[in-house]
């Protein structure tokens, strides 16, 4: 009897811990729920995505009172959750700055979170839940694998969505939507920048290692289209995001002796690949080209373990956190770190992912400031027309034909910081590209769409 009672108490305690564990360690006050992390697609989700979100009555809810709600589709459950603190801290930093400056039309900005667990099957349901919470726009989804579903939902429900993930043609061509906006990297632009670097440095062969998402695929395909016969394609390995054992791939790649490893991975995958590559001596021969190059979520663990191949990793960054001569940069880095500690009890260093979430919230808030109409159509139109400045660039806006933000891109080589200020790699700038230099033109996108048998949707023709 005693043993049964003890066992029962243990079970109750464990379920109690599950319930408290589900609320996570975050101190963010917004609502949140944990989505399923299974990958099965259910008809329930599809049915819900087909229901038009009831937004007509929400205008009064969203604009009444002292708050304006912005929804966030996050990932706190999957393996990709390793970077969630850095991402959310960026969004929270933007909210803090805006609220300290008086909010939007006197209203305080509040973030409402929903967890999609990096599963596209959850996107529609969680986005619909956010709408029912009275949000005026949604930041998300987090992963590029979820973005096509997000675009489909946004189009069906005619609700504005701003995604910080790496944009790719699965969205901009295959699922183009007037209601979808991108503040993240752009895979086609990354491919162009990597191709320029490869050609200018005389690399002759490349092997691609990436995740199974739209962005890695684009970064590979457009790279080889750009370089043509100048760089030999030695092959391609795409791995699931849960894979962290790369020794077999690295062993196979080492035997092919490539000049460059073209990378389309981040987070634990990146750390594992670089580390195991170092153990096999891969970086003595090859260079790595990718993006999120100096993102601390990718670099911290490697730098701490003493296994970062300084000078061998090149690629694109959006946040040049190491440039103290940019006025306000150091303060932003400090505020970002402070928020990470305050809200998540986590020591965080700058992250491109955090930067894209920051810019996403800024873009939404700047759009809201320009209009009194906070209905989905009103906010969408405002996003189409918004222009704003940050300490990193002026006249940031979304391109009218594909709704991709016109960031400046920093192409860097990750090097050791000689000043001693940064325990992580910093970027030795190769070139700063303007958006129009590397993003695909409308004509290029039209030609590519025709090539793959699709019709390119010019979003500028849908402007209201």
């Amino acid at each position: 009897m005693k043993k049964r009672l003890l066992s029962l108490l243990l079970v109750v305690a464990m379920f109690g811990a599950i319930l408290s564990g589900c609320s996570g360690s975050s101190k963010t006050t917004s609502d949140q729920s944990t989505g399923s992390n299974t990958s099965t697609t259910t008809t329930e989700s599809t049915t819900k995505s087909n229901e038009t979100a009831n937004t007509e009555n929400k205008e009064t809810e969203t604009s009444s009172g002292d708050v304006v709600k912005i929804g966030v589709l996050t990932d706190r459950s999957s393996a990709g959750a390793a970077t969630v603190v850095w991402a959310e801290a960026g969004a929270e930093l933007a909210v803090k700055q805006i609220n300290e400056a008086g909010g939007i039309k006197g209203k305080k900005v509040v973030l409402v979170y929903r967890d999609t667990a990096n599963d596209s099957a959850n996107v529609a349901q969680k986005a619909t839940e956010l709408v029912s919470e009275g949000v005026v726009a949604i930041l998300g989804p987090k992963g590029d694998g979820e973005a096509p579903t997000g675009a489909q939902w946004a189009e069906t429900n005619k609700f504005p969505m701003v995604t910080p993930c790496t944009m790719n043609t699965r969205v901009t061509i295959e699922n183009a939507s007037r209601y979808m906006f991108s503040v993240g990297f752009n895979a086609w632009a990354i491919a162009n920048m990597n191709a320029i670097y490869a050609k200018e440095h005389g690399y002759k062969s490349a092997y691609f290692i990436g995740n199974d998402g739209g962005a890695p695929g684009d970064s590979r395909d457009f790279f080889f289209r750009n370089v043509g016969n100048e760089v030999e394609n030695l092959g391609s390995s795409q791995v699931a995001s849960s894979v962290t054992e790369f020794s077999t791939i690295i062993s196979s790649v080492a035997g092919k002796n490539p000049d460059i490893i073209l990378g389309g991975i981040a987070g634990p995958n990146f750390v594992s690949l670089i580390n195991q590559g170092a153990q096999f001596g891969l970086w003595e021969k090859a260079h790595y080209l990718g993006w999120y190059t100096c993102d601390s979520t990718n670099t911290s663990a490697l730098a701490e373990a003493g296994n970062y191949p300084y000078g061998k990793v090149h690629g694109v960054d959006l946040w040049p956190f190491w440039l103290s001569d940019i006025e306000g940069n150091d303060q932003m880095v400090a505020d970002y770190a402070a928020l990470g500690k305050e809200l998540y009890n986590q020591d965080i260093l700058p992250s491109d992912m955090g930067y894209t979430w920051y810019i996403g919230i800024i873009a939404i808030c700047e759009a809201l400031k320009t209009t009194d109409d906070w209905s989905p159509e009103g906010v969408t139109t405002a996003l189409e027309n918004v222009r704003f400045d940050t300490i990193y660039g002026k006249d940031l806006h979304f391109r009218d034909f594909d709704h991709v933000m016109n960031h400046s891109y920093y192409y860097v080589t990750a090097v050791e910081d000689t000043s001693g200020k940064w325990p992580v790699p910093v970027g030795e700038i190769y070139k700063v590209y303007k958006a129009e230099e590397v993003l695909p033109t409308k004509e290029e996108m039209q030609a590519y769409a025709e090539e793959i048998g699709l019709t390119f949707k010019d979003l500028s023709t849908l402007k209201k």
Partner: protein
Amino acid sequence: MTVPFFFQTLVTGLSSGMISYMMVAGMSLIISGMNMVNFGQGAFFVLGTYLTYTITAHIGFIPSLIIAPLVVGGLGWFVERAVRPLFGKNMLYIMLLTFGVAYIVCDGMIMIWGYAIRLMKLPSFLNKSVAIFGIYFPTYYLFMIAVGLLIAISFWIMMNKTKLGMMMRAIIKDREMVACLGINVNKLFSIMFMLGTGIAGLGGVLNAPITGMSPKEGLSIFGNIMPILMIGGMKNMNGCLPAALLVGLVNAFGAIYLPQFYNLLPAALMVICMFIRPQGIFTKKEAA
């Protein structure tokens, strides 16, 4: 393919298989002896990795090879006690409970260590290459093979040459008879579960210096070992090692010849094996 390249690939495949063997061996012991699937096995693996990060900083890597599995095994004791009231009931209850355990362990790791991706620095004596017949191999991967073989041999000796192993084999064959003989079956279950989770923890220790890990990986790693379990035979502990090594080698050579299908290879191998021998390639068919 050159000869050095072949042997390098062979070693890589074997070492990769050894890491998988650690998780699968423990899982197979639990399934065989207790007739339950522990969905928390991946979480215990990752817990072993995270314990290594902390323990190694204080007392070094080699002692953590012993201490981390002991701690993980100790935690396994609590889980087994929680599961025990559900023995004999619908298998779904046990699966759900162990699934919940996985979430608790992963969230517990987040509370203690945070979300950040972690990686351990290899001890200097293992962070080298060694030349064998003129072919260079990373020392640590040879070390993993050696440790894995040591565990496999120890496991075999324990199961076949000790009284404890004899009782475990008896429970696997006929649990009720063992209970009738007056042997404390519950105590043996506890030992089995602790051994099973402890071996997974040891796998996590070996994994710490090579892969970047985050706590939530514990929920997804489990899916990677199911093909090995099915190929070896779910209740065949002897089949775990050859199955794990087979999958490791298939991954290693498949990465060279079929890189575009790298994700599919273990699952495809599992499907082929299920068609040929549903009970597992390394399992004898049960008499009708």
